[in-house]
């Protein structure tokens, strides 16, 4: 990780590339993690007392919890990290200051100009500001709240406090505790009763440099009968000054509501990406996670749906691509806590060039969750003999009257498939890419069009080995 303290003026996400900015002195907490730092963060943000207490208590929990013994091996010096960097002010860098290397990658990915600038942290003259402006107005009229979580603490204190930390309490796991202590940024969304947002709401429309921070915290409340599709992240490689990214995402789907949360993340190779994502679904509500993970040194991420009342549905689709030096420990968790609940997990992983992709999933059916159904399908594709794939499916069933299905397959790119495509003029590389794209097609077709296109292109770049 970068420990170069001379890059003071830079924004957290990208100072690996040592952007020069002309910002005035901005606040930056010193390295390390202790009560003083946490208090400083809270003070900087001008937070109410309850949030400061929440942070401090979370810090204690973090210290008291051991590192997880499963998943991948995590080698992070928690004292060698900046936990808070206040973003530079308005006059920040311009597009011209963004290094060519990053621009090239964006071009390769064919990312829309607006998104590129956002990703590069260029805040000035952000084109989609206008787009977002009118969009926002429309949403506001319907009572939708779409803001960053810091702002929500100030502007929607009661609503936020009612739900914040209730789905993933700080003591859930060590990294949830860490996030709870030092969180910054993330999205806060409230969709009122019966409001159906009929276009995907994209995080990058919300121009806020804190959005893509190290420890973002997202909270989404979908009220009764409402629906939303939230798309977060992006397919461009995300550069981070620090080696640790640890986010928390909490979602509440009330009766009859529907939420789909789509993430595609492509991290630089030095990142530990340890994310806790969990949703609760009440009666007849549907929660869907669509989760794509590429890059990083280690990703541990298991989006969860707790189905709390009859008729609730949980669906999790996950794709992981592990290349050289990468370990994707990704999966899903479904908890059937009420009768007549339905769950589905589809996981696809690809490993290449010595990468390791693991599926780790839990389906738990509580006692009395009778007539519940759950189905798990996990398929792994291994591209060469150096690479590895493993599955850790856990199933806990406490009720007899349920139906649970599990299928797993591991395949290697078949010689016969390669020959078939090559005999039709495709080069070996093109043929492998086509086979891989076919393998993840069932998931990619669930993505919004532009993300599907980017996902395919990203796979192609991964296959060429030119990204990450």
């Amino acid at each position, binding site marked *: 990780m970068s420990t170069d303290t001379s890059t003071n003026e830079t924004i957290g996400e990208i100072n690996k590339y040592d952007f020069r900015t002309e910002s005035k002195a901005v606040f930056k907490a010193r390295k390390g993690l202790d009560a003083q730092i946490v208090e400083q963060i809270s003070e900087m943000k001008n937070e109410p007392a309850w949030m400061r207490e929440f942070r401090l208590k979370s810090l204690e929990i973090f210290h008291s919890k051991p590192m997880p013994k499963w998943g991948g091996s995590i080698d992070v010096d928690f004292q060698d990290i900046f936990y808070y960097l206040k973003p530079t002010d308005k006059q920040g860098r311009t597009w011209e200051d963004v290094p060519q290397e990053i621009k090239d990658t964006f071009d390769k990915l064919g990312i829309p100009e607006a998104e590129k600038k956002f990703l590069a942290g260029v805040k000035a003259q952000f084109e989609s500001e206008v787009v977002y402006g009118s969009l926002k107005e429309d949403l506001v009229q319907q009572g939708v709240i779409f803001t960053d979580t810091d702002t929500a603490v100030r502007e929607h204190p009661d609503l936020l406090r009612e739900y914040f930390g209730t789905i993933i309490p700080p003591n859930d796991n060590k990294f949830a505790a860490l996030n709870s202590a030092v969180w910054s940024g993330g999205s806060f969304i409230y969709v009122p009763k019966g409001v159906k947002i009929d276009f995907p709401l994209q995080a990058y429309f919300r121009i806020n440099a804190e959005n893509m921070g190290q420890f973002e915290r997202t909270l989404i409340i979908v009220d009764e009968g409402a629906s939303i599709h939230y798309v977060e992240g992006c397919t461009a490689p995300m550069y981070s000054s620090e080696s640790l990214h640890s986010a928390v995402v909490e979602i509440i789907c009330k009766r009859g509501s529907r939420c789909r949360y789509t993430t595609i993340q492509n991290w630089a190779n030095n990142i530990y990406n340890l994310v806790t994502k969990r949703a609760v679904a009440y009666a007849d509500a549907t929660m869907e996670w669509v989760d794509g993970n590429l890059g990083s040194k280690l990703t541990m991420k298991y989006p969860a749906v707790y189905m709390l009342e009859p008729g609730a549905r949980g669906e999790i689709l996950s794709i992981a691509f592990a290349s050289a030096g990468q370990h994707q420990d990704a999966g899903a968790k479904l908890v059937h806590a009420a009768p007549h609940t339905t769950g589905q997990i589809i996981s696809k992983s690809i490993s290449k060039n010595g990468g390791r992709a693991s599926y780790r999933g839990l389906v738990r059916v509580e006692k009395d969750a009778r007539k519940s159904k759950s189905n798990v399908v996990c398929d792994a594709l291994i591209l060469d003999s150096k690479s590895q794939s493993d599955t850790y499916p856990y199933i806990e069933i406490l009720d007899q009257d349920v139906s649970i299905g599990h299928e797993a397959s591991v395949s290697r790119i078949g010689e016969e498939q390669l020959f078939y495509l*090559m*005999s*039709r*003029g495709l080069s070996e590389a093109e043929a492998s890419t086509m086979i891989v794209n076919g393998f993840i097609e*069932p998931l990619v077709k669930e993505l919004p069009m532009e993300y599907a296109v980017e996902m395919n292109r990203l796979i192609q770049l991964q296959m060429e080995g030119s990204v990450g």
Partner: protein
Amino acid sequence: MSHILRIENLHVSVNDKPILRGVNLVIKFGETHALMGPNGSGKSTLGLAIAGHPNYQITEGSIWLDDVNLTELEADERSRAGIFMAFQRPVAIPGVKMADFLRHAATNVRRPDRKEGEDLIAMREFRKELKGKMEQLKMDPEFARRYVNDGFSGGEMKRAEILTMAMLSPKFSILDETDSGLDADAVRLASASIAEIGRDKMGLLIITHHDKLLEHNPPQFTHVMLGGRIVETGGAELARQLHDHGYDRIRKAYPDAEAANQQMLAKEEPLAV
């Protein structure tokens, strides 16, 4: 156009087991050749060796397309050079739509020097062409959206191979039992399609056990393979004779080749289930 496919003294082994033992064959552009012979005599092996399957090692001899030595090329380069084989058992590629697959294939074959990542044939133009070809072959347009050979019936697979041939317009096509697994109507349709697309427009090597395909595509030459060699060559009447009377005469006339054929069959490893 004048092109020649020339196979000279071809010896091929699979897993170090010799299968072909000196095949000689010359096919000119526009000609139709039938390749017959009992099961396990090496017909598919010849086709796969020409197409460049990596498991079929050429231990001796050569394959020339005009002045290009195909044995030095990978399967994709041979395809771009103008070789096509409709397989006896096509392979499924789940998740890949026929249309996408064909667009990549057609682009590469038409622009043999294309580098990976360069543009494909324009979508609009390609769609129009594909639609036309599918109509010609009486295929449901929906077919273009299905995944390559995935869950296809036997008949659908063979028709997909013919469609691919139509889109790639190769110089030489090897059709390996493209008439098997089809019902009577489908055989007639496939035979007529092959005649329409391939006859006189490329060199055809038709491997078959039936007569319908050859009725529609009367061969100028019929070759009989036994024990990994072409033991006899004749005209269209030879195909008819073999079809009517079987291979007894051939087996008796060429005892060495028959012995080799029996040996190959005997040495076959039991299939792992």
